[in-house]
């Protein structure tokens, strides 16, 4: 028995001495949530970096957005995880509260940061926590030029066009993933609503919420221009197969539509005359943060790599392939960006968008919105009931989350 105990102890001693990759001076690990086509570009640029910097190995690991978020939290408890996390700005909120990412304002000079579009610098409680290489990442109206040469400018036009194209159940005027409240935000803002006030208190039980929910239901049940039920995959398939001329989706889908051979254009989600407002999608940057557990001596190497990944060449590479909006202001006059009609229209939509709040409370708001929102779609709650229920549930969830 003594043998056993001592061997067990020894093995634990050995395993606890095993270094995490954070301690490895020759390796930098990035966790990211890029799509497969983006990953090929990432791999190319990283290969170039490694060729120019012998002795440094950069490992890029793909994690699905949610898995990245939960996995990074768990790894961080043990002082491990990647050196760099790459993802949408809303993960900055919880990571900052948990103190698992580093403030960046002392690591990058003011002069360097001044080269970026201010929307690309993600601050929380007065400190910089993320620098983005892409901004926007917002919803817009994508239309199939072969079916619809002139996209609608107003909701009335959209409904008229929609009615012309709809032949249920095979063809619909407009599709989008309407089971997910994120895709509902342009409608909410189009009726003058928003998810929270400046202090982070939810603002869901409002006339705007009720009006927006009613409008959505009308699109489905009165004008019948959207399918009876439609998740992301269904919407995507209908648009790709040419069975719907318009879809509300984000820049992450461009690559896929190109591959499917669709000649598409993008434009703003149509104007709502009734309120005099443009529907405003949530706008969020996607970028890099540094793990708070990286040893001090490794930081210069990590900063060097991040600067490379934010460099004009790399950003242009993404724009060229995926029509994303770069973050270095000097690039806005570059022909690759200036002559790209999709980037131009995407920027045009971004102008009326609203920055996605990055505070952790947004999580609770989504969680509170989703059930009632789906209940309205399922016909088990009225828009008024749903708005009340969302607000109540959001307040409760925020309280639970912050206990």
């Amino acid at each position, binding site marked *: 028995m003594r043998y*056993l105990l001592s061997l*067990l102890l020894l093995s634990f001693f050995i*395993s606890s001495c095993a270094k995490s990759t954070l301690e490895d001076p020759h390796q930098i690990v990035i966790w990211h949530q890029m799509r497969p086509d983006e990953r090929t570009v990432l791999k190319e640029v990283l290969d170039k970096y490694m060729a120019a910097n012998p002795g440094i190995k950069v490992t890029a690991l793909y994690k699905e957005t949610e898995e990245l978020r939960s996995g990074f939290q768990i790894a961080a408890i043990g002082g491990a995880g990647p050196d760099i996390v790459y993802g949408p700005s809303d993960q900055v909120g919880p990571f900052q509260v948990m103190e698992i990412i580093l403030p960046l304002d002392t690591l990058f000079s003011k002069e360097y940061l001044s080269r970026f579009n201010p929307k690309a610098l993600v601050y929380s409680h007065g400190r910089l926590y993320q620098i983005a290489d892409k901004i926007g990442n917002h919803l817009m109206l994508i239309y199939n030029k072969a079916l619809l040469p002139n996209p609608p400018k107003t909701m009335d036009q959209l409904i008229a066009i929609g009615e012309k194209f709809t032949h249920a159940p095979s063809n619909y005027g407009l599709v989008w993933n309407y*089971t997910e409240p994120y895709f509902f935000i342009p409608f909410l803002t189009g009726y003058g609503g928003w998810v929270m006030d400046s202090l982070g208190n939810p603002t869901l039980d409002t006339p705007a919420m009720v009006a927006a929910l009613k409008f959505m239901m009308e699109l489905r049940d009165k004008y019948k221009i959207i399918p009876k*039920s439609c998740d992301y995959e269904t919407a995507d398939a209908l648009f790709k197969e040419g069975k719907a001329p318009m879809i509300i989706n984000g820049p992450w889908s461009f690559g896929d539509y190109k591959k499917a051979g669709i000649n598409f254009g993008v434009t703003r989600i149509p104007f709502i005359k009734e309120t005099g407002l443009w529907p405003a999608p949530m706008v969020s940057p996607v970028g890099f943060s540094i793990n708070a557990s990286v040893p001090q001596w490794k930081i210069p190497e990590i900063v060097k790599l991040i600067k490379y990944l934010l460099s004009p060449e790399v950003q242009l590479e993404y724009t060229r392939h995926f029509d994303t909006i770069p973050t270095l202001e000097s690039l806005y006059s570059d022909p690759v960006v200036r002559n790209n009609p999709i980037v131009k229209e995407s920027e045009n939509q971004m102008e009326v968008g609203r920055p996605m709040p990055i505070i952790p409370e947004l*999580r609770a708001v989504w969680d509170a919105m*989703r059930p009632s929102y789906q209940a309205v779609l*399922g016909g088990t709650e009225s828009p008024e009931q749903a708005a009340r229920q969302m607000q109540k549930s959001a307040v409760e969830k925020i309280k639970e989350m912050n206990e």
Partner: protein
Amino acid sequence: MAFNRNKMTQPQERKTRFFDSESLSPNTFAYILMIPAAIVMFGVVVYPFFYNVVLSFSNMSLRHFRDWHLIGFRQYIEVFRGQVFYTVFLKTLVWTFVNIFFHVTIGVSLALVLNRKLFGKAALRTLLILPWAIPQVIVALTWRSMFNYEYGAINLFIARYLQMAPVEWLGKPLEAFSACIITNIWLGFPFMMTIALGGLQSIPQELYEAADIDGASAWQKFWSVTYPLLKPVMIPAITLGIIWTFNNVNIIWLVSNGGEPSDQTHILVSYVYKAAFNLYRYGYAAALSMVIFAILLIFSLVFLKRTKASEAAY
């Protein structure tokens, strides 16, 4: 020279002693063989389990992520105070027992069929095991698209061949929950079938012959020979099946897309997952998972004892 020889032979002696199993007591040698497995088990089961116990008594959450401390039974009180626990628990029971009922009924029936002389038996058996061989994620997502309201195979079938109105499978709570159950039944019966088939093949043929001589009907043979001899094989399998089904987060999560609609399709484990990773309530989620553990532990002990599964059949 003598000094040298002494120096040379000593390490060898020690070496032979260490590896000579005869000089060790049989138990010690067995322990040494168990060490690699013990280390792995300690790392992936024992340590996380006790860490979870500690977390369940802590206030670890978004605001107390690094500076968490122990707060006694508060999280457990929170678990039992909320209405959610009871409704989700009830759903979990329905989920588990409906699933297991169909797994066992379908599994045993198919095993009885396959245990006879049958044309193309090998091919049939392979086909029937197939659901079990496909990765769960793929099964779940395939079924999810088959349940689609307008384009799913199931509604197309219902509308075309049964002349009934299409069902809104994923949009309404009861329907979505049924969709999850149907998927899991499809996924689970091959396991019970395989076990039952193994059990059936080990029943001595003489017993059936004796029953024939006594003039027993097929039904009597089933209840007097097959059932009692199959029981000791099936009880452990059913126990395992119940534990697996009770804890099966994959199917619920993927088919209903994380509890949709309206968080009405959760079972306890998917609810724990949501509490931990959506709202960062680690302490609460740990306490809830300890409650789940206790439920399953008590259930398994009582069930195994009542059914006398560990006793010999013959």
